[in-house]
């Protein structure tokens, strides 16, 4: 009997330790980003990140202003979200309410597959096919622009939006739908005036989670946005996002230099931004599920 009890305890403790590694990893991520970034606090000081320009390699005056990188990320994310919302919401409504059961069985796994396409493959497609298209359409000298990146990122956000929105739409009580139809509303009126509003917070959460994925995406962006760190809101201008900056520059900087530390600060800003976005989205989903 004694052996059995010892074994039970041993198993239990092992499992607790394993389950706690997730907490450990999250703590280590924060810790090690800060560890590499912290010498920057003494010199040149955190204020240097507020400068207007990102010129880490300038001969005259280096400048580590995050502004152009943040606007770059925001611009691309906003454009991608704007493109993804109609496709995502229509897709979710179609799969949940309009498609037949057979059609749904095919469409749902297909959407899951889209989410699985490696971002570097999408980036490659963007580089070879989408960029020349953008270049031709807007008569630009180069097709590597914010909008090119946004088109690809929208493609990555859509599966997230569809999967979670569809879930939200399907969990709207059937009584709502029946009541609406019984009152003489047709299918379309029922969908847009009853079902979608009832599922709205789930849909909003799905959009936020999609944005979280977009803002953190690296490879597709680095390959097609042109990588010019400038502060602009023009969709057809070349921009550089926070993720692309880290990926493009970290490989070439000397370890421990100010530039190296600045890149870790970019990582910290990125981590906090996605963390907040996900936290709010989870809260919305949770509140919605309880209701």
């Amino acid at each position, binding site marked *: 009997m004694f052996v*059995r009890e010892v074994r039970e305890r041993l*198993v*239990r403790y*092992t*499992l*607790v330790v*394993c*389950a706690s*590694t*997730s*907490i450990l*990893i*999250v703590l*280590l*991520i924060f810790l*090690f*980003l800060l*560890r590499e970034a912290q010498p920057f606090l003494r010199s040149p000081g955190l204020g240097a990140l507020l400068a207007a320009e990102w010129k880490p390699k300038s001969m005259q005056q280096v400048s580590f202003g995050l502004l152009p990188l943040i606007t770059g990320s925001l611009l691309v994310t906003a454009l991608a979200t704007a493109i993804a919302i109609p*496709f995502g919401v*229509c*897709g979710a*409504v*179609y*799969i949940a309410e*309009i498609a037949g059961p057979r059609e749904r069985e095919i*469409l749902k796994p*297909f959407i*899951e*597959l889209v989410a*699985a*396409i*490696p*971002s570097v*493959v*999408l*980036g*490659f*497609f963007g*580089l*070879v096919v989408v960029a020349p298209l953008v270049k031709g359409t807007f008569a630009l000298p180069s097709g590597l622009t914010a909008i090119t990146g946004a088109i690809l990122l929208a493609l990555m956000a859509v599966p997230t939006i569809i999967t979670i929105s569809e879930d939200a739409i399907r969990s709207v009580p059937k009584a709502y739908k029946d009541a609406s139809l019984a009152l003489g509303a*047709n*299918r*379309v*009126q029922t969908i847009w005036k009853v079902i979608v509003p009832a599922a709205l917070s789930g849909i909003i959460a799905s959009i936020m989670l999609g944005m979280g994925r977009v*803002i*953190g*995406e*690296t490879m597709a962006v680095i*390959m097609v946005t042109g990588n010019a760190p400038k502060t602009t809101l023009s969709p057809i201008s070349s921009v550089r996002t926070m*993720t692309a900056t*880290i*990926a493009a520059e*970290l*490989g070439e900087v000397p370890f421990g230099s100010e530039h190296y530390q600045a890149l870790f600060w970019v*990582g910290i800003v*990125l*981590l906090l931004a996605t*963390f907040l*976005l*996900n936290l709010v989205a989870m809260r919305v989903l949770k509140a919605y599920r309880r209701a």
Partner: protein
Amino acid sequence: MRLQVSEQLVIWLVRLVTYSMVAVVGYILFDIVWKGAGVLSWTFLTTSPSVDGRGGIFPAIIGTFYLVTGTIAVALPLGMASAIYLTEYAKQGRLTGLIRLAIVTLAGVPSIVFGLFGLGLFVLFLNFGTSILAGSLTLACMILPTIIVSSEESLRAVPLALREASLALGATKWETIRKSVLPYAIPGMLTGSILGVGRAAGETAPILFTVAAFYLPNLPRSIFDQVLALPYHLYVLATQYPNPEQVRPTQYGTALVLLLLVLGLNVGAIVLRTHFRKRYRW
């Protein structure tokens, strides 16, 4: 009557938007398969790349294989154990809440941040250098949430009655889990981990600074060596050569191999999932 026409119109519009998206994705897949298929050959798959960007991708395939194996060897046991704890043992409480928050946070961390973290912890602090070990550990941290969540799902699908019956016969908790729960849950858990493998095989950002080599015609000898990996190799081929047009066939070939690998794993997981769902109908 007018109402009915507009109703049909809206339904067709929603259908059109949905299928236009399907068409775009279909075109992407078609483009890569069409232009990549001509490049695929036994030589392409089994020879080393040459300096000018042409040649085969054998070291990249092997490199990705090593990375994925290392990743799954770390992430699978950890993820399964976490899931068993969360579904079978954990009570509502502070620790459980913290673990759940950590998993959600981890799932949302951008892949490039995992790269920074891997560089700071594994490459520099633990002094593994840019190596298979550092890269695998970084990728393992990244796919851990995927494995935990899908393992939990398959554990929860096992009916409570099975556990109650086993406990009523005098089995201890662990004996119950091992003999009455896991045999039914393991297929589902493995299916979920295939999805994790697919993600690890396709990601580029986490391996940029932890393992991937720019150009390396040789195969690795130990877990402390650098490797070529398919996704990073594609990135290098597509962006780092002065004449990308000339390397285009190799780029398409590499993209196709990567796509087939990742989508193959995902289709496999979906098929297996349907298969097991049909087999156990409680």
